[in-house]
């Protein structure tokens, strides 16, 4: 057939079916709309999360190192409009100026020297409420209020830093990016970069950490910042000495959740596309069912089967294009509407729906899905017997093995391609395709077994309506079977989506640190603890936890000295550097009889050594980094006293809980007499931290209060946004999936108008026809729903445990509701499609058939 004739015939053939194929266009457009909206919204959501999370980093991107950035390295090369701030941090001892010839009291503090604007994001709350840069003249300092109390100083007094006097120009109330509490050495002291340059502190250089904060122009997409971060990681000289961080790395509690959300969004987009594909396949199947006569006539007229196949494929492609365009428009509209409807979810100005590449991708994916998923139903064209023009009930032509093979291979390769494009990973694409294949085979086998079982089941005992339904289920021919498989797959995907969404959103809600401590108290002397505790209780503190802390150093592992362990290795390999640091740093030991609830022993058993040697329980990643295992003997130096501890258990710690946790927990009784301090975590009533700080400063000036309420609130906000986003996008996809499935069922049922007419002709009332069909649809829906629900439970379990590292939970109720909803949906959509046939006189339907 010549191209011109092909195009002419294509145009003619599409004419009468345009209205009928509205289903097709609708299914596809819902799928594409979901893809476009999810893609757009997830990037907007990501931007929204970034707005919150970057406050925890005080910048968009930070380069952290323990030496200055190499000369000549310009991290902002090629990126215009980026602002920079340089920060140097070091622990140092500050002192009040000498009074009456006697040296003033001194204190170990965390010195932070700032050059440039600080912070870029979040707020540094100061008293007086002025920008840090204004307060920080080269000879001025801004300090934490507890330092004033400890050193008996006031605003305007001098503070001796590095041997030079700085005027105290302000007090720090809260700091946005002070997130770590584990290695805090003391109160905060700010000076300017110029101020630091005045002191001899830079010269020593040993413990100064350098931090370069970068702020990108407003509106820079998160992906761009990530790309810059990746490039910096690749190009920075001596990468072992620097760490490139973005807002993702600012808070360990968020890192894993952000990764989960990304995986979830990828899954949502993939599955919504897949559900759209099922809708397309079903509507093509229904469409072709109505075109069998025309196809037979075309074959009679001498059109070759493959020409007819191409004809319908061409139509499908055109419809796919139409559906994709409608879907893109709908997806863009959804994105435009959302910020107005859910301002908490996506802040206005965060939505950029007009991204030509993303839209083009939606178009390509839509057309691709349309063609791919219609291949199998379209191949039925090849099997239409031309003799149908004479005998409508003629058997279909035998399946052509090569055609089946080509269709199958193309479909699998196509799904693989689409999944890889959508998830931007070949590995994920392969996993998804394999999963879909496996699930389809299992579903088909289950459907076949059930249909066979029903066929064998005696149904004489049943009431007529049930008998009719059972008979319909067991009817020979692939229609019922195909419908069950397609519907089952749809139910599986939608239900799995909803289960994963529930689990994930539930997890985010659970992680919201509602009961986490709002302040940590460090450096409490053991004899001060009863008094401090009393103060806390009177101030209305809840959840007061306290543990002893024994400072120590690790000196040997299994008899090999740490000096030998570290000296043997090159300092340039990052892993070894980390190990060396972990081996040589100060180790804070604690001791307790039972572990806190957020600790789980994963190997060995607590305090179980049969030889009754002193024992230690080690946290999992610490054990991994130092290559420790059960039975390893660690030697610690505690204030000059060597202590040998045998590792008898390894623990997993949930660091997200914000509770007090230690890498090393020692058996009680070993360290009880060692020099120690106490460490406490409390939850204070809102605003109580400052009062507590003032109270403690007056009575126990050596105790430092670390406020983490602001940090917790920020983490909470981000988690909330993530949870809301997951619920919303998951719900959106589930709804889209239900709409598509309803459409597919309707499309499949529309061809049964002839049967309606026939039953009416045989004297069945409309009510009778409705109940007859309802039972049949309900049974199909129940069977498909049951199979789909089992599959969904398995899929959701796999995704939750493997993909999200969460514990799986079997929830029977959503599954049961899913099965019931599947039956109800099938009945409703199926009957809705037969309404027209029910209303018209039978003869009209019989004639048009």
């Amino acid at each position, binding site marked *: 057939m010549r191209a011109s*004739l092909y195009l002419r015939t294509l145009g*003619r053939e599409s004419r*009468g079916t345009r209205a009928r194929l509205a289903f097709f266009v609708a299914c596809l457009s819902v799928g594409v709309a979901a893809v476009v909206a999810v893609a757009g919204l997830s990037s907007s959501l990501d931007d929204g999360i970034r707005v919150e999370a970057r406050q925890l980093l005080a910048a968009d991107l930070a380069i952290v190192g323990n030496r200055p950035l190499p000369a000549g390295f310009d991290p902002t090369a090629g990126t215009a409009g980026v602002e920079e701030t340089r920060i140097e941090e070091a622990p140092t001892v500050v002192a009040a100026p000498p009074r009456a010839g006697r040296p003033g009291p001194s204190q170990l503090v965390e010195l932070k020297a700032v050059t440039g604007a600080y912070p870029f994001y979040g707020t540094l709350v100061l008293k007086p409420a002025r920008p840090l840069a204004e307060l920080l003249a080269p000879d001025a300092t801004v300090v934490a209020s507890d330092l004033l109390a400890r050193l008996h100083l006031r605003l305007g007094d001098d503070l001796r830093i590095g041997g030079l006097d700085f005027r105290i120009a302000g007090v720090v109330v809260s700091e946005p990016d002070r997130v770590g509490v584990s290695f805090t050495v003391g109160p905060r002291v700010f000076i300017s970069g110029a101020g630091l340059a005045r002191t001899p502190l830079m010269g020593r250089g040993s413990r100064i950490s350098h931090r370069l904060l970068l702020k990108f122009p407003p509106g820079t997409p998160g992906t761009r910042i990530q790309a810059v971060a990746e490039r910096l990681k690749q190009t920075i000289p001596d990468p072992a000495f620097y760490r490139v961080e973005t807002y993702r790395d600012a808070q360990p509690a968020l890192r894993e959740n952000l990764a989960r959300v990304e995986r979830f969004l990828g899954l949502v987009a993939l599955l919504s596309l897949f559900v759209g594909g099922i809708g397309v396949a079903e509507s093509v199947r229904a469409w072709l069912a109505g075109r069998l006569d025309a196809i037979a006539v075309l*074959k*009679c*007229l001498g059109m*070759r*089967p493959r020409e007819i196949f191409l004809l319908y494929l061409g139509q499908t492609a055109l419809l796919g294009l139409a559906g994709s365009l409608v879907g893109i428009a709908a997806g863009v509209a959804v994105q435009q509407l959302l910020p107005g409807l859910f301002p908490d979810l996506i802040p206005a100005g965060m939505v950029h729906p007009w991204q030509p590449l993303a839209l083009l991708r939606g178009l390509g994916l839509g057309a691709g899905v349309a063609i791919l998923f219609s291949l199998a139903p379209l191949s039925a064209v090849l099997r239409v017997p031309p003799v149908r*023009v004479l*005998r409508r009930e003629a058997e279909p032509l035998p399946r052509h093995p090569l055609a089946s093979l080509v269709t199958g291979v193309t479909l699998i390769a196509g799904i693989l391609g689409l999944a890889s494009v959508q998830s931007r990973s070949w590995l994920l694409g392969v996993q998804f395709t394999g999963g879909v294949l496996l699930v389809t085979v299992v579903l088909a086998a289950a459907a076949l077994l059930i249909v066979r079982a029903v066929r064998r089941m005696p149904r004489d005992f049943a009431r007529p309506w049930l008998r009719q339904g059972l008979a319909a289920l067991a009817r020979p021919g692939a229609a019922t079977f195909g419908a069950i498989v397609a519907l089952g797959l749809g139910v599986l995907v939608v239900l799995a989506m909803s289960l994963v969404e529930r689990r994930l959103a539930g997890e985010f809600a659970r992680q919201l640190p509602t009961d986490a401590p709002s302040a940590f108290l460090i450096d409490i002397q053991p004899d001060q603890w009863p008094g401090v505790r009393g103060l806390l209780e009177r101030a209305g503190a809840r959840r007061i936890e306290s543990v002893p802390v024994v400072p120590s150093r690790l000196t040997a592992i299994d008899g090999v000295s740490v000096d030998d362990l570290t000296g043997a290795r090159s300092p340039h390999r990052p892993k070894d550097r980390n190990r060396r640091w972990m081996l040589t740093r100060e180790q804070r030991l604690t001791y307790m009889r039972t572990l806190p609830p957020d600790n789980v022993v994963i190997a060995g058993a607590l305090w179980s050594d049969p030889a009754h040697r002193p024992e230690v329980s080690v946290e999992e990643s610490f054990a991994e980094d130092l290559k420790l295992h059960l039975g390893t003997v660690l030697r610690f130096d505690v204030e000059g006293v060597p202590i040998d501890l045998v590792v008898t258990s390894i623990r997993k710690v949930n660091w997200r809980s914000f509770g007090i946790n230690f890498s090393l927990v020692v058996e009680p009784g070993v360290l009880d007499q060692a020099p120690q301090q106490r460490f406490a975590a409390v939850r204070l009533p809102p605003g109580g931290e400052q009062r507590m700080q003032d109270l403690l400063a007056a009575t126990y000036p050596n105790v430092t209060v670390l406020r983490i309420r602001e940090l917790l609130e920020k983490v909470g906000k981000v988690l909330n946004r993530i949870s809301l986003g997951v619920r919303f996008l998951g719900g959106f996809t589930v709804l889209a999936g239900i709409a598509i499935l309803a459409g597919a069922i309707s499309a499949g049922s529309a061809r049964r108008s002839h049967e309606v007419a026939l039953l009416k002709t045989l004297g069945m009332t409309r009510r009778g026809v409705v109940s007859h069909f309802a039972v049949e649809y309900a049974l199909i829906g129940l069977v498909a729903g049951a199979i789909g629900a089992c599959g969904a439970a398995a899929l959701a379990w796999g995704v939750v445990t493997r993909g999200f590292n969460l514990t799986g939970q079997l929830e029977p109720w959503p599954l049961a509701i899913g099965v019931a909803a599947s039956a109800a949906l099938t009945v409703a959509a199926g009957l809705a499609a037969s309404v027209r046939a029910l209303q018209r006189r039978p003869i009209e339907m019989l004639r048009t058939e």
Partner: protein
Amino acid sequence: MPTASPSATAASAAAVPSIKVPSIEVPSIEVPRVEVPRIELIRLTRRLPSGGRELTIVDAVDLTIPAGQFVAVLGPSGSGKSTLLALMAGLDRPTSGEVRIDGRPISGLSEDELALLRRHQIGFVFQSFQLLGNLTARENVLLPAELRGLPDPPARADELLAAVGLADRGHHYPSQLSGGEQQRVALARAFAARPPILLADEPTGNLDGATGRIVLDLMTGLRRREGTTLVLVTHDAAVAALADRQIHLLDGRIERATGLPELTAAGPETAAAAAAAAATPDAAVHAESPMAVVGR
């Protein structure tokens, strides 16, 4: 059932000129020197599975139809008439036996090759019209001519629509036409690609008497004009009487044949000869020969 006999063979050789083709507007037909029957059925059998057992629909039918002949196939409902027609057109495949078109066996052809055979050789008229509902009357007629690749299909379609008296209804869709009009469009479509063979299945079965008569007259007139071999299935003796030959089917077997004798007998020897003839390059030319002359 007709059997091969030497006299029949002899008579058939002389029968070609005597076919009723005087109304053909072209003065002469190139009569092939080696006569190959247009359609040949050899021990043609079709069984269909029915409720666990096999039902023989067409039972070892032998039949030879020469080029240009008008054969009516008669028989009661269920006698296998339509199946016989479907087998002749390669719409259905025989359980055993063979169909030859212009001496060429069609049983080994793929679905694609069968489609091409129909495109070039066979036109259809059905009881239920089978017009394509998405296409206008004119487009329905155009399609076979376009598929065949004839020069100027629109002119051909207009000419045929005029011939069936529907010149001004070409832009209507089938649903906007009466039954008789639809069947006239179907007739025009059947002749559009100048097929040497026309197969008609109860073409007047869905029409009232007067309309049926008009359609029948148009069909026979066009057939004469185009020199088409016509096989018409009917249960109406009056319709069958218009044919050169009447084949009566009963339970899938030829009960009797009336009218003109066959041109070639379906004996094994002649079948072999025909097969040999079909293998010669001339065969294709012969197959096309009536079309090459008629109607140009």
